[in-house]
């Protein structure tokens, strides 16, 4: 009774932890539940070109920063003959290229991969600004500015409201005369943002320009866009000029903040800068791994994914073994199939994974049946057990060689994969089957041999299933769920499927 209760508790805990971790990885870390789920990843590139004047060159470029929704991973830079480093100056990141003896035209690239999901907003983390300098307006501008500000002031309660009202009037479909006078008809967005900045500054409110690229799902983009960031006394708030909304648009990749120049060149002329963003669809799983590695998620640091690739591959196979075990448990205890050797079918299934099913089956049958014939002869030699098994082992290896060579000669290269079969296991299988022939007859051999092969084939099919292999590798915590199922089956006292047949005559009588 207590054993049963204990088991229930253990199973409950296993299920909770296994399913919980899986859910966490899916929901929080973004690991897709299904293989083949795609996610957009952007490659953002800035391309600076200029002509060197012959003096030492120093190029400084603002670099994109993380947002709440986007994670930037520096990818590569190019600039032949230039040294490159990144300078972090509080709120901004800058890439610096330097060279001493330049000549001619130059092109410098900076590339970053941008993933979905991000870190705490850098913009929000910026320091409080000093009070802005009052901008200088001409007489006419000054009057318009005053009236615009007065109107906005009237219809707002705080800095943020004021900024919003300003943005609204600067972007209104039918601008007031004052707005027209200040920025003219159909001004560019740049001009509008400039005007907004000057207005805010003249009202004594710290405000900055945020430049960046609005990324698009599944689409390339290349235009820099301006947003307005204002200080409301406690923190920075970004206002989207397009819809006069507060907050950074979800897919906005900030590249430059404030008055700092987007790029600066010393020792070069005729410079220009181009941006481009390419949207790629990559596997969601890959995106999640890169992303979580980048932010140093401890669940990744302490998982298989932190191991070297070969070790990961080894585990990809190892993690299939419990699945095989589960199949064996189900087939033996619930279906009631008989197998020769409890876990021999799993090993055979693993071989099938490497050789392909049909090849594996044929090779297995050839090796085991010729082994049985030869072992049958060994019986009459009256050998001791260990030397006999050793002899079978040698026979098995000889069979491997013969099969490989003959197969290869005949142009059947599949025969070469016979070496995947574990020799010791095959030898023991032959030994056990041959004893079975002597003691219980051929029928039992076919029964158990067939049961083993059937189990191996089913285990193979399950183990090579795309979903199963994905889940076992990406969510190794599901092992715990497997363990829970095995424990439950371990206490299953109901009938096996085969018993429905075996005891059928008894049921009929009633």
């Amino acid at each position, binding site marked *: 009774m207590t054993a049963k209760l204990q088991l229930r508790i253990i199973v409950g805990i296993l299920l909770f932890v296994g399913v919980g971790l899986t859910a966490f990885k899916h929901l929080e870390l973004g690991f897709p539940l299904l293989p083949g789920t795609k996610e957009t990843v952007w490659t953002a590139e800035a391309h600076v070109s200029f002509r060197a004047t012959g003096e030492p060159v120093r190029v400084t470029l603002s670099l994109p920063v993380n947002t709440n929704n986007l994670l930037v991973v520096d990818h590569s830079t190019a600039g032949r003959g230039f040294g490159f480093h990144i300078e972090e100056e509080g709120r901004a990141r800058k890439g610096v290229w330097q060279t001493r003896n330049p000549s001619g035209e130059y092109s410098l690239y900076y590339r970053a991969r941008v993933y979905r999901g991000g870190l705490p907003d850098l913009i929000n983390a910026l320091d409080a600004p000093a009070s802005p300098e009052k901008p200088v307006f001409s007489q006419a501008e000054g009057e318009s500015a005053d009236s615009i500000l007065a109107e906005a002031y009237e219809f707002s309660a705080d800095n943020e409201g004021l900024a919003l009202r300003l943005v609204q009037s600067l972007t209104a479909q039918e601008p007031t005369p004052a707005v027209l006078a200040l920025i003219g008809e159909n001004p560019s967005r740049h001009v509008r943002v400039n005007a907004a900045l000057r207005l805010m500054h003249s009202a004594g409110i710290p405000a900055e320009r945020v430049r960046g690229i609005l990324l698009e799902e599944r689409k390339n983009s290349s235009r820099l866009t301006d947003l307005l960031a204002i200080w409301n006394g406690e923190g920075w708030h970004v206002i989207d000029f397009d819809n006069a909304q507060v907050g950074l648009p979800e897919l906005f990749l900030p590249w430059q903040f404030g008055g700092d120049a987007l790029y600066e060149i010393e020792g070069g002329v005729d410079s220009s800068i181009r941006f481009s963003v390419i949207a790629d669809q990559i596997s969601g799983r890959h995106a999640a791994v890169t992303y979580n590695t980048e932010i140093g998620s401890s669940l990744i640091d302490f998982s298989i994914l932190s191991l070297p690739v070969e070790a990961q591959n080894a585990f990809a196979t190892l993690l299939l073994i419990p699945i095989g075990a589960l199949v064996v448990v189900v087939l033996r205890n619930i279906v009631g199939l008989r197998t020769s050797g409890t876990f021999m079918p799993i090993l055979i299934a693993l071989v099938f994974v490497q050789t392909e099913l049909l090849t594996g089956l044929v090779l297995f049958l050839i090796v085991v049946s010729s082994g049985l014939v030869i072992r049958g002869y060994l019986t009459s030699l009256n050998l*001791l057990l260990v030397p006999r098994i050793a002899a079978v082992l040698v026979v098995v290896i000889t069979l491997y060689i013969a099969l490989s060579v003959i197969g290869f000669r005949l142009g059947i290269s599949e025969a070469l994969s016979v070496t995947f079969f574990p020799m010791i296991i095959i030898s023991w299988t032959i030994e056990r089957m041959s004893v079975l022939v002597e*003691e219980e007859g051929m029928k039992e051999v076919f029964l158990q041999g067939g049961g083993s092969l059937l189990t191996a084939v089913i285990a193979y099919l399950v183990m090579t299933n795309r979903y199963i292999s994905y889940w076992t590798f990406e969510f190794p915590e599901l092992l715990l769920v497997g363990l829970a199922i095995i424990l439950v089956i371990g206490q*299953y006292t109901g009938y096996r499927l085969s018993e429905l047949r075996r005891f059928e005559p*008894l049921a009929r009588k009633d």
Partner: protein
Amino acid sequence: MLGLATPRQLAKAGIVGMNRRNVELIAQNNPRHLYPLVDDKLQTKKLAEENGLDTPALIGVVRLTGQIKEVHDFLKPHPQFVIKPARGSGGKGILVISGREGDDYVKPSGSLIGFEAVARHINNTLSGLYSLGGKPDVAMIETMVDFDPIFDRFTFEGVPDIRVIVYKGFPVMAMTRLSTAASDGKANLHQGAVGVGLDIATGKALRAVQNGTPITQHPDTGANLAEINVPHWENLVRLSARCQAASGLGYLGADIVLDKSEGPLVLELNARPGLAIQIANGTGMAGRIDRVEQLIARDNPPEDAVWRANWSMKHLAAI
């Protein structure tokens, strides 16, 4: 439908399935540390002798390969004997010799084998061929049971043995296993022996099956199996009940044979007896087990083996 029963039908018929046997009957009643007592026939023999259970006499034990060459002379005074691996199971590695012809040994089937064959058999036994996991073993030589002629008509060579399932000291179900030509003198059901369910109260045949199908006549002798009526039945049932007390196993199968002169002898004890006995009896044993549980829970029955055997014979046959 399709020759399949539903789980509900089986439950209603009181069938105990493999999983229930393993989880409830074996795991809960048979402590692991007792297994060696019955898995090693040599220990069982000692146990039986200490507890005064009748069993075929031990002639000798071959423990080393070097001793094999002495066996021929050693066995001279014993025309009939049986060699078996101490840790064998399922009839594996049992060599029954029923007589001599010159230097040759006669098997129950009548075929002759030379001493080399016997030596090889012992050699195989010692090297563990017949034992679980291939572990090195010892070969036991015991007297062949001179079986009661009452069974002559019902068996083709070999000794028919009677399997009694004893649950917590109460014999709950019994059957006899009759060798056939197919089973080469051995009485193991999956080797083709005939299983005959026996009335636990009287030792009379209830029904017979071979390879899972009901039969009425012995396939080799043609005898009407319904006429089987095991003599010394009460002694036999009591002997089986005493096996529980001796071994401590709560769920055991006692294999008992009837010797012409010595009566019921314990051949071996089994800590994991199979379920085919239900088919041979034509009825499940869950009902009887429940009845025993009920008795234990309610009436605090005496430990005495004879009392328990008598109670079983009186109360269980009808269930």
